[in-house]
């Protein structure tokens, strides 16, 4: 199972297309194998008891649906239920009467370079850009090996410094010896998507 880190690039919204192109050019210069387009979809349902339920679909796990329950306090762990694709339609039954709060999509290009898989994608909400994410997977035996190699790849080939800051809090907290599963990748997306949502709400409150 490859170890996957998701990096959020902090950049102004209007510069996202240009910067994405720059990153893609840097990767293409290494002559990678271009893979199919990748896609991540997040749908957030707001339950009446103040908990939010996030449903994630990732093109790498095309027969799988991930459902996350947002913890009510930061100390609580995120509950992730992994199911087959039938969970997506069942979720509508479970959440009958709950309102769909928002949908975020991430669409981007994917490349394979040796043992690395690199995905660069733009987060959109109602077809307007919201952020830029880079997902790097590396086939390593354990997390200790992968961390250094992935950070080095990001800094040397993508030219991104302060890469540690771009990681999600979940990864920073996770024990270096712990195993990585597809749920960990999804939780990283959840963390990044949530930080984007809080940034947007902060901006709105500043404008008001």
């Amino acid at each position, binding site marked *: 199972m490859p170890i996957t880190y998701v990096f959020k690039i902090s950049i102004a919204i209007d510069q996202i297309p240009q910067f994405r192109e720059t990153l893609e050019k840097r990767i293409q210069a290494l002559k990678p194998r271009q893979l199919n387009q990748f896609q991540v979809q997040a749908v957030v349902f707001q*339950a*009446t*008891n103040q*908990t939010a*339920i996030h449903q994630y679909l990732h093109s790498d796990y095309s027969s799988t*649906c991930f*459902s996350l*329950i947002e913890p009510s306090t930061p100390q609580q762990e995120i*509950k*992730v*239920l*992994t*199911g*087959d*694709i*039938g*969970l997506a*339609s*069942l979720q509508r*039954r*479970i959440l*009958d*009467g*709950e309102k769909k709060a928002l949908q975020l999509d991430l669409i981007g290009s994917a490349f394979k370079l040796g043992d690395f898989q690199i995905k660069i994608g733009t987060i959109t909400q109602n077809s307007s850009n919201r952020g830029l994410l880079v997902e790097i997977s590396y086939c390593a035996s354990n997390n200790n090996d992968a961390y250094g190699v992935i950070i080095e790849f990001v800094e040397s080939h993508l030219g991104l410094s302060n890469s540690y800051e771009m990681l999600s809090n979940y990864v920073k907290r996770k024990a270096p010896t712990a195993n990585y599963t597809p749920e960990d990748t999804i939780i990283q997306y959840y963390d990044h998507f949530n930080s984007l949502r809080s940034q947007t709400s902060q901006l709105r409150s500043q404008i008001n």
Partner: protein
Amino acid sequence: MNEYFLVGSVLDTVKDGFLEILRGLCDNPENKPIEFLETEYIFSKINPNGSSVSLRARRVGSPPDQTQHCHLKYVGGIDQKTDKVMVRTYNDCLTSPNLNEYLMALGFNLETELIVKGYLFHKGHLKVVVSKIFQPSSAGEPQPVSNSHLVEISRTGPPGQTTMGESVKQFADLFKPFVRMERVSQVVEELNF
């Protein structure tokens, strides 16, 4: 997705003979029937719009085995308009083992816990299940709910497929006179369960 189904029951004393007949009627008669032991949890929740949702979670094995994957099933009310077989809305999926914890966090309450032990047969797209239902008891051995086995023939497919209902009914007719697979009203079905 809809489920077209019929239910019946067979006494424990004649169950073995009925299983032999089923082996002959269903696919792969040279193989032994698939045996299963599952724990079924029935969860329910009242939604904000006043409607109640009931979900059935199944786990392979009996408690305290918690490592296996789970099966989550939603079944709707039985459609009263159909005459030959019973039809209800059906959605299901396989999930990771933390299903009960997840449903509780969503506000679902555990209503009933049952242990289901039985045999599974296939005939094309038809599924035949002969099962005995037990009530778990804190004193050790689970207690059987009745002295008979539940027989269920089902098939899932898109809504409005009368041919699917007919195929269920035709196959159920082959069980006569051992088991009468009839359309029962929902009230009687609830009493039997």
